[in-house]
């Protein structure tokens, strides 16, 4: 009986450990054929912890994402998708985990500075939400300046790329919120 007990236990533990890695990615019935992740430079792997934290949000809090962002996630800094993971983590923190309502201002300021340092971030509304939450913590002049710099940096990113440049006219309205009067 003991042998059977240990056999079952070993199989169960092996099964659990194997699955706990969440390494298995099965495409659904693809709308398009999905190329292996490593052939699409920049694409965030489906099993990346940030993706898991978002699609299993009931198991996490903003503190979990924040801790992960500042520690383990930094090990991805040489990966082609690092900037994308930072952007997605920021967006998830603000929109899913209500960062501006839950976290202290120093944490919000950390993410504003992180986003401000990136050459291109698509989440202007979320950036502005964070800046507004910093009113009273940062001087208004600093808030306005950071928003202005974010707009100019994004515009420069578009301007420096022959592929992105034609898109600026269509996209700039998304970033106009950075220049809005209510930040002043």
């Amino acid at each position, binding site marked *: *009986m003991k042998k*059977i*007990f240990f056999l*079952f*236990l070993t*199989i*169960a533990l092996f*099964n*659990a450990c*194997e*699955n*706990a890695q*969440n390494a*298995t*990615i*099965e*495409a*659904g*019935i*693809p*709308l*398009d*054929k*999905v*190329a292996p992740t490593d052939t*699409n*430079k*920049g*694409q*965030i792997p*489906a*099993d990346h912890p940030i*993706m*898991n934290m*978002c*699609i*299993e*949000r*009931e198991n996490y809090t903003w503190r979990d994402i924040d801790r992960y962002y500042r520690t383990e996630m930094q090990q991805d800094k040489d990966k*082609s998708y690092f*900037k*994308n993971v930072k*952007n*997605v983590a920021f*967006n*998830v923190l603000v*929109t*899913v985990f209500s960062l501006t309502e839950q976290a202290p201002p120093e944490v919000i300021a950390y993410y504003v500075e992180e986003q401000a340092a990136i050459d*291109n971030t*698509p*989440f202007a509304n979320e950036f502005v939400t964070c800046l507004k939450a910093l009113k009273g913590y940062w001087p208004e002049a600093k808030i306005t300046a950071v928003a202005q710099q974010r707009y100019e940096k994004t515009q420069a990113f578009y301007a420096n*790329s*022959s*592929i*992105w440049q034609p*898109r600026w006219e269509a996209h700039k309205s998304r970033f106009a919120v950075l220049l809005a009067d209510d930040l002043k």
Partner: protein
Amino acid sequence: MKKVQALILFTVFTVVSPLWAKVNCECGSPESGITTYSVGDHQNCCTGTAAATGMFITYLPDEGNTWHVDTQTVISGTAAQNGCCPPG
């Protein structure tokens, strides 16, 4: 005692163990958008039970063919699964 042990083993093996894991599913392409969601362990992406939340991310390429996140939308897991597995 042996019956109790057997019952515990059966429970661990058949009920608890599958709850420890899940399968991540995705479909689409960076340009059209990647839909990501999860189903339970060993479940089929299209017939399994989708978790509550899914994600839809679109990308734009640069000259070096690196993809940059352009939009990200949190959607329900069921909507994600329906998007990846259209009926029929």
